[in-house]
């Protein structure tokens, strides 16, 4: 808009413009328009015609212009500008006037000169000059413009050169002509000046009034604004201090003037954001400072839109705010994009975080796996040499040592055992965790397990605690499960309970529960159980042994002494028992220190104990419970704990067991008939399943025979075994029926004794010596002495019974292996038959009945797997057809000569245990698939052999 003026008064432009524009827009406006004023003008015309989107309260605008500070300033500036312009014009005119008057004077002077020169010729030529002077006189006030130019044109000082002689006619003629020319030129000039004058006059006339000029300026500004704002998505408005619209410019008007002017936002719109914008405007009004804000509107009028709103306060001349200018721009799309971007960025960040997290997790998992693997490997690697150390120590213990050396050795042994136990625990744990551990399904009697565990615990008991066990009547006599693992869990829990209990009792409570029973019954059950055990105190020991004594079993030339006794109890529960699953719950309770609430959560974690002080006080690795829990869960049950600090804890595990099928019970029925007379009253004991080990009772009971009933610091196995054995000692001589379950523990005890082999050179002396020693000083017992004594007594009495009771067949082709196995069996107290391949094994089984077969898998002629299949097929069908088919010559005669009972017995499923060189699980699966019951990995050790015999020759 200022551009048109540029040509005339460029220096004025800025002055005018600054008043017209908000400061910050000045630059942009200029840039935009400086170049082509003409074109702009055209466009502006157009704009003015086409669009009239603004709605103005003119009166208010007038008022604004009059009263507001800004309007006032603007007016003042406009007026100043006009005044300045006028002043400038006046100055110019004055300058010109001065010049003209100067020229006038010069011309006058010239004229005077000329007149002086031509005084005498006044007559003839005076008439020529006259009009000029008049004209001069007249023009004198009018010739103002361009006096300078004229000065150049007028050649005043030029002396006219005339060739003719002075004062001659020619001369005067020439002179006259010359002057005439000058006159002509003068006239011409006069003409020009007149024109100029005319023009000036017109110009003067055209010169507008200040108001006109101002309105023109305003109009230009207006046009420019229109041009700029033509398509801008902006809303510009002014609101008074009541927030009523006084002016609004909106490119997309959707409301008429009457709808807006004089109303507030709230009155016009409804919906979200309206109130906020109004409040915002009001805030600006109050604070008197311009501000920007983004407001999202959600109105019915134009839907959901986001506006960037700029609001500035308008001040009156007195400096009070009288309203606000507001400018809004729709930024919905931008906001949306921005939000989208933000969201994307956020998602990206989240994803990235997740990724890193995942990577970390993967890394950790890998690390953990590797660490576990390493731990397992390490443990294994450590175990081998460690067992070497322990074994060597044991050997060393058999040599002649003095008391102090023995003491030291004892410490060595117990430390070694502890480390071995720890390593075994770690191995177990990593086995369970890596899923390598396989469970075995074997038949076992829960009552016996409970009894054994309690006996074992009682044997190694070093405190005055009552150990009790109670098996409910509804618990089946025989169930199927992994007895070794269950025993491990029970032993672990019991030893834990004993460890943390200083007085009172520790007990096991076994009963059938419906699947996933609630915990509430436990309390009442326990109470009744406690009462019943109390009442049973007096004959508690009677309960504990429910098997026959060795004499009795010796009398019977049958090998199934205990089997018989216990199986006849199957009649009650067993006949009912189909192939079904029972859930048996086992509570291991104590009256110990309990577990504080806060420690419950850590209880089953690895290497965790209740507290640092606990660990210090009680020792232990903190692995036991973790293993128990994992084992229980592996078997499909669950392990829970409830505890009251200082009053005791109860560990409860519930496991599913299969109950033996009905066919088994039929068989046992027949068998048990013969045994029934031998075991009077045992029925009740077994079914009530009550076991009680009271410290005092035990003491008196055994003091008659041996004072050292409670050995100190003995590993469990020794104690347990000796428990039975020490009692056995006098039996052969006194012929008194034992109160303890001797025959059953017989195998255990032998095994236990054998574990600590020694060259028994001095046993005969030591035996009697030891007895005296024990009586003198109980606490000086050590494992070795007891063990050696056990084995010595063992040899004389129990062992012989056992060998008669159990027939074991070893199928093995390797001479060395045979030798070793034979020797081990001898130590364990069994005589064995040996055959060297599968075919011979089948023939041997045909000849006589065995209670256990140890079968090598890879053998010449016929391997162990095939032999097992053949034996199993015989057991199922009763005929050797399969074997004959396989090309084995059968001894028909011997088969027929068998008595009926023998046939029955033979056809009972013989436990077959594979001996395999590779311990890999696949081959184990193969063994199971072929009908084997278990497997031991070669080379066999006393330990594994004993475990195996224990679980199959009970």
């Amino acid at each position, binding site marked *: 808009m200022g551009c048109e003026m540029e040509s005339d008064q460029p220096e004025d432009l800025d002055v005018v413009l600054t008043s017209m524009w908000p400061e910050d827009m000045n630059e942009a406006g200029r840039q935009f328009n400086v170049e082509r004023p003409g074109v702009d003008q055209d466009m502006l015309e157009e704009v003015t015609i086409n669009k009239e989107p603004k709605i103005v309260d003119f009166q208010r605008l007038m008022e604004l212009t009059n009263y507001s500070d800004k309007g006032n300033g603007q007016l003042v500036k406009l007026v100043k500008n006009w005044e300045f312009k006028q002043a400038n014009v006046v100055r110019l005119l004055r300058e010109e006037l001065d010049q003209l008057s100067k020229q006038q004077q010069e011309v006058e002077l010239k004229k005077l000169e000329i007149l002086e020169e031509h005084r005498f010729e006044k007559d003839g030529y005076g008439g020529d000059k006259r009009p000029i002077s008049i004209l001069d006189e007249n023009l004198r006030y009018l010739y103002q413009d361009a006096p300078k130019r004229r000065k150049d044109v007028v050649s005043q000082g030029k002396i006219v050169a005339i060739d003719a002689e002075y004062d001659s006619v020619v001369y005067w003629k020439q002179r006259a002509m010359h002057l005439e020319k000058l006159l002509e030129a003068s006239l011409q000039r006069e003409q020009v000046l007149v024109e100029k004058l005319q023009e000036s006059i017109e110009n003067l006339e055209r010169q507008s009034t200040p108001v006109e000029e101002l309105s023109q300026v305003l109009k230009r500004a207006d046009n420019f604004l229109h041009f700029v704002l033509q398509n801008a998505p902006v809303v510009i408005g002014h609101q008074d201090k009541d927030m009523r619209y006084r002016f609004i410019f909106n490119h997309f008007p959707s409301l008429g003037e009457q709808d807006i002017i004089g109303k507030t936002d709230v009155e016009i719109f409804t919906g979200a954001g309206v109130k906020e914008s109004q409040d915002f405007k009001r805030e600006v009004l109050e604070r008197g400072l311009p501000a920007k804000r983004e407001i999202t509107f959600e109105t019915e009028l134009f839907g959901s839109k986001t506006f960037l709103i700029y609001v500035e306060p308008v001040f009156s001349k007195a400096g009070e705010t009288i309203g606000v200018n507001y400018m809004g721009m729709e930024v919905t799309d931008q906001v949306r994009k921005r939000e989208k971007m933000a969201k994307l960025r956020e998602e990206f960040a989240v994803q990235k975080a997740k990724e890193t997290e995942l990577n970390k997790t993967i890394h950790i998992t890998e690390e953990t796996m590797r660490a576990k693997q390493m731990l397992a490997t390490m443990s294994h690697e450590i175990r*081998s*040499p460690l*067992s*070497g150390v322990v*074994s*060597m120590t*044991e*050997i060393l213990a058999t*040599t002649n040592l003095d008391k102090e050396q023995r003491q030291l050795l004892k410490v060595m042994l117990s430390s070694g055992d502890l480390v071995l136990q720890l390593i075994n625990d770690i191995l177990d744990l990593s086995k369970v965790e890596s899923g390598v551990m396989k469970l075995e399904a074997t038949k076992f009697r829960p009552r016996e397990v409970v009894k054994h565990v309690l006996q074992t615990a009682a044997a190694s008991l070093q405190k005055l605690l009552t150990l009790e066990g109670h098996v409910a009547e509804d618990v089946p006599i025989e169930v199927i499960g992994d007895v070794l693992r269950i025993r491990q869990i029970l032993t672990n829990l019991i030893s834990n309970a004993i460890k943390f209990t200083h007085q009172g009792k520790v007990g096991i409570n076994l009963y059938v529960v419906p699947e996933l029973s609630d915990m509430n019954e436990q309390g009442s059950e326990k109470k009744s159980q406690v009462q019943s055990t109390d009442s049973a105190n007096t004959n508690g020991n009677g309960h504990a042994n429910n098997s026959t004594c060795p004499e009795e079993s010796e009398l019977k030339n049958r090998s199934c002494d205990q089997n018989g006794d216990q199986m006849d109890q199957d009649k009650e529960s067993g006949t009912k028992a189909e192939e079904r699953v029972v859930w048996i719950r086992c509570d291991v309770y104590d009256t110990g220190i309990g577990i504080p609430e806060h420690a419950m959560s850590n209880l089953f974690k690895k290497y965790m104990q209740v507290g640092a002080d606990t660990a210090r006080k009680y020792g232990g690795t903190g692995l036991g419970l973790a293993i128990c829990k994992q084992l229980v869960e592996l078997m499909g049950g669950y392990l829970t704990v409830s505890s009251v600090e200082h009053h005791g804890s109860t560990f409860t595990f519930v496991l599913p067991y299969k109950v033996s099928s009905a066919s088994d019970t039929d068989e046992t029925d027949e068998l048990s008939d013969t045994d029934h007379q031998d075991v009077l009253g045992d029925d009740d004991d077994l079914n009530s399943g009550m076991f009680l080990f009271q410290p005092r009772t035990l003491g008196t009971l055994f003091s008659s025979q041996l004072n050292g009933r409670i050995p100190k610091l003995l590993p469990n196995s020794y104690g347990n075994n000796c428990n039975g054995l020490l009692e056995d000692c006098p039996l052969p001589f006194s012929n008194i029926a034992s109160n303890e379950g001797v025959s059953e523990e017989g195998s255990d005890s032998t095994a236990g004794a*054998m574990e600590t*082999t*020694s*060259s*028994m*050179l001095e*046993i005969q002396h030591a035996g009697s010596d030891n007895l005296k020693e024990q009586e003198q000083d109980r606490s000086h017992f050590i494992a070795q002495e007891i063990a050696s004594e056990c084995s010595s007594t063992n040899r004389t009495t129990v062992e012989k019974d056992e060998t008669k009771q159990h027939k074991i067949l070893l199928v093995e*082709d*390797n*001479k*060395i*292996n045979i*030798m*070793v196995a034979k*020797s*081990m069996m*001898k*130590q364990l107290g069994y005589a064995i038959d040996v055959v060297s391949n599968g075919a011979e094994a089948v023939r041997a089984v045909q000849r006589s009945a065995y209670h256990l077969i140890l079968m090598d898998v*890879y053998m*010449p002629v016929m391997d162990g797997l095939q032999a097992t299949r053949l034996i199993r097929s015989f057991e199922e069908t009763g005929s050797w057809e399969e074997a004959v088919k396989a090309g084995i010559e059968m001894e028909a005669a011997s088969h027929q000569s068998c008595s009926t009972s023998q046939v029955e017995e033979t056809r009972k499923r013989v436990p077959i245990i594979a001996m395999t*060189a590779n311990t890999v699980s696949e081959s184990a699966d193969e063994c199971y698939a072929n009908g084997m019951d278990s497997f031991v990995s*070669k*080379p066999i*050790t*006393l330990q594994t052999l004993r475990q195996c015999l224990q679980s199959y020759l009970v």
Partner: protein
Amino acid sequence: MLGLSVEQLRADMNRLLAILFHQGVLDEQFLQLQQLQDESSPNFVSEVVTIYFHESEKLLRNLRALLVDKELSDYKKMGIHLNQLMGSSSSIGAQRLRNVCAAFRAASELNNRPGCLRALELLEYEYCYLKNKLHEFFQIEQQRMLAAAVRYPAPQQHRNNPQG
């Protein structure tokens, strides 16, 4: 004085055993064997080991014969021999022999003749080593037994003892 020599011999034995264990020549299975030795079979270990060496020597001879026959190496038969050897080795706790056997068997399963030959050489070496060491061991043990046996009897036998 004699008691001292018994102790000395016992220490020697233990040291020797410890070395063999440390070298991995033997493992704890050997201790199992020792555990099986009692008054009813006082020479159990040496008996078993003697039989073992006897058997192994036969097996090694057979293996060499099988391998020398370049054309018709009967790898299957070799495998049976090796299984046998491996079984007895692991039974007496000859760990290193057992491991070599395992490697040998792996090579024989792949019909890898050079591998087999190498393994056989190693096997023979290990066999000799074990034999020498165990021989030494049993010799010491015998001395120890003798020394232990003369502990209580008459003093005149003391003098004879060290030479025995």
